[in-house]
């Protein structure tokens, strides 16, 4: 079982042009900002949108080739979990889940039996006789998942599966979803704008920006070596681009960084974790190979640390403890010195796309 898709379609504001491959038993997260084309990609896989060009292959069967071949959603063997779940309000939870098997020709008794089994697997069989309006948000999410799983789909699609939940419910539902995805033998694709959901639920992440794939890799790949400012911002690291020559990186935005890798040549990206940057009020005399001046533009408190936005060459975000801010009396407008060790800078060739 596998899914391979090459999707091209024009949708007014943007052109979606993306490739996607999912192996059986794995989950791919499509991560991107709102309006990047994530949901359109999902709808194309489900057969709710036709592609203009390309090819969608599920289980070795071509279901859309942008031309003569188009398999209707009902014949694709996919399960789709909508962002707002789209549970049928006039049916009970059990009838919602039994709807798929019934529509695919199973008998009434058998369909209800299958529905009970799936509900039990998700630990919500006690809700069977309730209406969707009588269950909580987290429960509704599980019902929607149960309904999608009840037909035994080869491809499970989830559109922002956790977006409608509050923070507390979200964590418990995410853990449950992790467990379900681990057991699910088919291919799963989930669309999200939350990097945490993507990193915790998916084996691979595809980053979609303005209809095109900006980066693709494991959650670790993205965290360590983001390819675009969007991904870097999601991962909370500083990303700088420039040209590397003999252990120095001449930055596109001005300024130069000394890097540990002497052999790196040509277009390159450099990642600096905010924690790796030291802020001083006077020129530092330490061992750090990089030191430059800047000015604080904003200070934001995040739980146990403070993110300090600094303009300079280069401009960066540094993370320090609240105590350090108090001692140094740093606020917007403060002139500061920044320093970072060359070994703390991860520089790598620019992944040309």
């Amino acid at each position, binding site marked *: 079982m596998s899914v391979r898709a090459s999707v091209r379609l024009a949708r007014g504001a943007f052109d979606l042009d993306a490739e996607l491959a999912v192996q059986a038993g794995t989950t791919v997260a499509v991560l991107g900002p709102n309006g990047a084309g994530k949901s359109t990609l999902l709808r194309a896989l489900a057969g*709710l949108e036709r592609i203009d060009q390309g090819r969608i292959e599920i289980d070795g069967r071509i279901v859309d080739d942008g031309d003569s071949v188009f398999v209707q959603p009902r014949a694709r063997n996919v399960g789709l979990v909508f962002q707002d779940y789209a549970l049928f309000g006039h049916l009970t939870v059990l009838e919602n889940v039994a709807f798929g098997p019934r529509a*695919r020709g199973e008998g009434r008794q058998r369909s209800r039996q299958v529905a009970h089994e799936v509900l039990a697997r998700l630990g919500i069989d006690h809700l069977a006789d309730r*209406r969707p309006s009588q269950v909580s948000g987290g429960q509704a999410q599980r019902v929607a998942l149960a309904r999608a799983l009840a037909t035994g789909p080869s491809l499970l699609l989830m559109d922002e599966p956790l977006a409608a939940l509050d923070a507390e419910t979200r964590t418990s539902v995410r853990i449950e979803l992790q467990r379900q995805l681990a057991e699910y033998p088919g291919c799963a694709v989930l669309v999200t704008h939350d990097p945490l959901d993507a990193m915790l639920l998916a084996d691979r992440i595809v980053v979609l920006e303005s209809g095109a794939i900006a980066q693709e890799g494991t959650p670790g790949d993205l965290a360590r070596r983001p390819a675009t400012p969007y991904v870097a911002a999601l991962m909370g690291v500083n990303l700088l681009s420039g040209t590397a020559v003999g252990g120095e990186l001449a930055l596109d935005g001005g300024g130069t960084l000394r890097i540990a890798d002497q052999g790196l040549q040509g277009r390159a990206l450099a990642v600096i974790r905010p924690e790796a940057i030291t802020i001083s009020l006077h020129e530092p005399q330490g061992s750090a190979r990089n030191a430059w001046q800047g000015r604080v533009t904003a200070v934001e408190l995040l739980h146990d640390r403070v993110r300090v936005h600094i303009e300079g060459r280069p401009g960066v975000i540094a993370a320090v403890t609240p105590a350090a801010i108090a001692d140094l009396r740093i606020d917007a407008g403060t002139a500061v010195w920044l320093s970072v060790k060359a070994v703390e800078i991860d520089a790598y060739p620019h992944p040309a796309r």
Partner: protein
Amino acid sequence: MSRPRRARAPWFLAVPGAVALAFLLIPLIALLAQAPWASLGGIVTSEAARSALLLSLVTSLSATAFAALVGVPLAWLLAREVLPWTGLLRALVLVPLLLPPVVAGVALLAALGRRGLVGQVLSDAFGIQFPFTTAGVVIAEAFVSMPFLIITMEGGFRSLSQRYEEAAATLGASAWTVFRRITMPMVGPSLIAGLVLCWARALGEFGATITFAGSFPGVTQTMPLAVYAALETDRSVAIALSVVLLAVSVSVLVALRGRYLRAQAS
């Protein structure tokens, strides 16, 4: 739970509001006050009244059934904007609603009359004639009442998110199954409201019916026509029949209203 305190109404709303209420209720009260209660039973169970009432029920229910059969699908087509020029079509569908009923009757004669656009073909080829028949009454009633069902149902379909139908499709349901098991049940309250409006309009139809089908007792003389006819001979009979019509309308509306409210609450 305590009832919220009633807001005090400003006089410039309270006074005209009271006038409107009186204006709407006084004729109904007058009808009941002047009804010949002593002879009511006799008048209502008379052969003429019974046949008019039966004819009214049969024709208005037939017209409503016909409207549901073809009007609901049209409402869906309009709501999903699958037809070209949906905006124009929607406006055209509403014309019979605004048309003076007499004009509707004349238009039906022009279309289905013996020398009408379609009527001539039907008459020549199959010997089918609608004017001055019971079927003609059904046609006249359906023509003026179907728009009520269409606009109500279109609103219902339109406010139903397409995601439910999409969800059902990905679960393997055919278009027919989606429509029958998802779309229609989910617009149930709109359907009931639309059917009631449509039926009430058909039951009260007068102008188009008398123009297109005439007023023949037992064949095309429905209750409103019978009331009008009685007015010229015996005023008390007209009032008695009117009270019956009022009772039928009110009782069915009350009965359906309870169901409609329950359907909305769930």
